[in-house]
Structures are given as structure tokens and as C-alpha cells.
């Protein structure tokens, strides 16, 4: 495994204290307090509209909380050594290689180092044969693979994934899950939302369960799946409709 050198100071744990988010007079996330600790695989569960995506976007720094604090251990306002993979990744209208190089150029890496990282990334994820292909013409599975590779090339300490397999078929899903496990084995902290309970069981070390914008449970996955304390979480696992 050719993990990229990570020289940045540690950015984790990420501390959320009483974080709320409101839009249009509605409180969508309410008083979330939680630490994202390094080296763990945290799966965020909850029904549609529970606030899972918002939670990830707040952590990643795409939106600002309307109340509460989000603090990185490195003291940065928005940590550099993080990346996010979206359900439908936006790939630039350029080649696979150019897509991998783009964030590295933004980071200010010199050209030689960019080339080297791109070559290693292509090699590491078996994308070398696709290097010159326009990214937008890849299949859905290949596009998501490229999005994960692009995130990995940024040498993140924490990777946020928002339903990365929701639009993929089972074989592509298996490939993406294997990639996520490999990332975690390299020491990258994983924070991921999913609505697929099987996937959650396969990948989770910790589970955060959101219900109507509130954090109901945050526990090791084994405990959570053995028997959640909150009735909402029990109902969710049982597949009941909860409102």
C-alpha cells in the first residue's frame, strides 16, 4: 500500500459543541455535540431528512452553523487535510488525469510533485488506462472511483462521504466499500452517511444516529446494532416508519 506522506499537524479530533443549523425559520440540526476522533470509521444513520447530509457539510466546512462551535484540533478555521465525496460527484469537464491534478494545484503543490502524486494515484487505483479519458464519459462506478481517488490524492486525515454508493449498482458498491476500508486501514478517519443498513454494519466502528435534526445516539457500532437504547433507533433498525 502506497500511502501518501502526511506531514500536516493532526487536525482531529473535530469537536462539535451545541451545533445547530437553521434555514428559512426551520431548525434542521439542533444542538449537536460530538467529537470525531482520529482513526475511526463513523457511520451516520438516520431517516431521510434527519439532517445527515447537513451534518457532513457542517463538519466539512461547506456551511456555517447558526449556533454552536466546530473546532479542529489544529486550530484552523477550516482544516486543509480533509476531503469529501458526494453522492453524485462533480467531475470537471477534463481528462481523468486533469481531475486528479486540479486540487493538488489548488494546494500549491509544485508541478513535479503534482505529476508524481497523479501518477501514483492513477497506479494505486487502477486508473492508469483511463488517464487520458474525459472524466464525464466514465461510467457511474468509474466516476465515483475517480472521485474517491481524487479525495485520496489530497492526503486527507479525515474523509467525509455522503451516500457514496446510493447511485451505484452492487458490484460498483463493493469496489467503493473496499476502497473505503483500505483508506481506513491507511489511517484515514472515515465519516460517512448511508441509508443501507447492511453497508453500515460492514463498515461502521461507531454509529451516530440522527433523528429530526437531533443526535439521539453515538456509540460503538457493535453496541448500537446489538440493541439501541432510543426507541427511534430501535424502530429505525426494525425498518419501521418513524415520524
Amino acid at each position, binding site marked *: 500500500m502506497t500511502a501518501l506522506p502526511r506531514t500536516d499537524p493532526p487536525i482531529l479530533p473535530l469537536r462539535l459543541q451545541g451545533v445547530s443549523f437553521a434555514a428559512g425559520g426551520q431548525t434542521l440540526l439542533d444542538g449537536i455535540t460530538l467529537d470525531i476522533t482520529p482513526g475511526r470509521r463513523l457511520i451516520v444513520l438516520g431517516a431521510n431528512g434527519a439532517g445527515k447530509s447537513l451534518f457532513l457539510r457542517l463538519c466539512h466546512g461547506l456551511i456555517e452553523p447558526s449556533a454552536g462551535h466546530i473546532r479542529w484540533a489544529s486550530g484552523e478555521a477550516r482544516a*486543509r487535510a480533509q*476531503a469529501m465525496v458526494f453522492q453524485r460527484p*462533480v467531475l470537471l469537464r*477534463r481528462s481523468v488525469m486533469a481531475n486528479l491534478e486540479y486540487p493538488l494545484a489548488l494546494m500549491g503543490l509544485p508541478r513535479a510533485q503534482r505529476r508524481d502524486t497523479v501518477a501514483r494515484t492513477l497506479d494505486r487505483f487502477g486508473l492508469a488506462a483511463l488517464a487520458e479519458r474525459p472524466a464525464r*464519459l466514465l461510467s457511474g462506478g468509474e466516476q465515483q472511483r475517480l472521485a474517491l481517488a481524487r479525495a485520496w490524492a*489530497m492526503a486527507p486525515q479525515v474523509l467525509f462521504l455522503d451516500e457514496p454508493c446510493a447511485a451505484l449498482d452492487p458490484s460498483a458498491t463493493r469496489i467503493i466499500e473496499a476502497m473505503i476500508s483500505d483508506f481506513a486501514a491507511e489511517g484515514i478517519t472515515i465519516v460517512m452517511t448511508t441509508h443501507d443498513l447492511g453497508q453500515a454494519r460492514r463498515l461502521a466502528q461507531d454509529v451516530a444516529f440522527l433523528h429530526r435534526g437531533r443526535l439521539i445516539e453515538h456509540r460503538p457500532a457493535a453496541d448500537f446494532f446489538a440493541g439501541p437504547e432510543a426507541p427511534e433507533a430501535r424502530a429505525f433498525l426494525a425498518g419501521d416508519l418513524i415520524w
Partner: protein
Amino acid sequence: MDGPFAIAFALIIGGDAALWQIIGLSLRVTLSAVVIACLLGLPLGAVLALVRFPGRGAVIVLFNALMGLPPVVAGLVVYLLLSRSGPLGGLALLFTPSAMILAQTLLILPIVVSLTRSVTEDLWAEYREQLRSLGANRWQAVPTLLWDGRVSLLTGVLAGFGRASAEVGAVLIVGGNIAGHTRTMTTAITLETSRGNLGLAVALGIILMALTLALNAAAWGAGQWARGRLG
């Protein structure tokens, strides 16, 4: 006596020096104006799409309205600027190709700005979160969006070229239609037709049409190719 079409073909095939001089000047003026309008208009349009500031709406409406600016009015404005008593009169640019480039830039700029704004605004809606996630700020997003919108933007640039190469009013007023110096295809057609010298007018008309056709064909081909190639 031969008809105008026969004379026209004789001029084109014979490589008439005066004819080629006129074509050369027209292309030089219009292409220079297109390049200048793009250098100013592409970044300006993208910034207008991405940055919110007071009066932004008014600026957008102004540029949209200016797309319909009559060429003679553009010519008149530049004439007033460059005439001896005007604010830029000291530059002695009136009745030179430079004045014509300036007037045509004024005509093309609103087209480039408005189209760029609309193209980059749509792309920004799609790219915004992803670019922010990858570490780009708004200013860094500008070149990214311009490059990723390149196929659509080509259409706008072409529309600008079409407008400039077809207009008479602006170049006539600020250029003066001086033979061998500021006479373009369109001003020459106007003059030669009024003189009854239809052969040269028809020859220039044919060439103007052929140029426009060739350019549009090339742009359409490039667009088709890019769509297949870039997705």
C-alpha cells in the same frame, strides 16, 4: 458589359490587390476587437456570475440591454470620445483602424459579458460545493468555470464576431471609409453600391458570406467534437 457576378468572380479569382487589402483590414479590425472583448468580457462575465455586490442586478441589465446597442450609436460614442474636442482627442485616433477596433469592441463586449455570465452562473450552481470542497475560493473558481464552459462560450464569441463583421455604422463613423486606410468590406459594399460599382460590392458580399459560413461551420464542428469528447 459583364454583369456584377461575372466581375465579382473575376476579381476574386484574379486576386485583386485592392480587394485583398479591404479583406485584410476588415479581418484585422474585427479579430482584434473580438480578442480585446474576450480578454475583458470573459473574466468580467464570470465575476458578475460569482460575486454578489450592490448594483449587480443593474449591471447585468445594462449589459443585456447593450447587446442591442445600435452600431451607429456605438460609432457616435467613440466618435465623441476621440474627436479633437473629446476627452481622448489628444490621441489622434479618429479615422484610424484603432478607432474602428475600439468601436467594435464596444459592440462585442456586452455579448461576451452577458453570455459568459449566464454560462458560468449555471456551471457554478453545479460546481460550487465540489470546488469549495476541493479547496477553491471564488477567485480560483473563475478560470475553472471559464475553461469548463469553453464549448458554450465559443458560441458567444462567435456571435460577437458575427455582429462585428456584419456592422457598417460604427466603422463608417469612426473610420471614415478612407480608401486603402480604413475601408472595410461592409463600408466598401455601401460605397460601391451607391456608386453603381456592383462588381466589387458583390465580390465583397460573397467573401463576407463565405467567411461567416466557414467560421460557423468550424465552431459547430468544434462543438460537436467537444460534446462527444468531453461529455
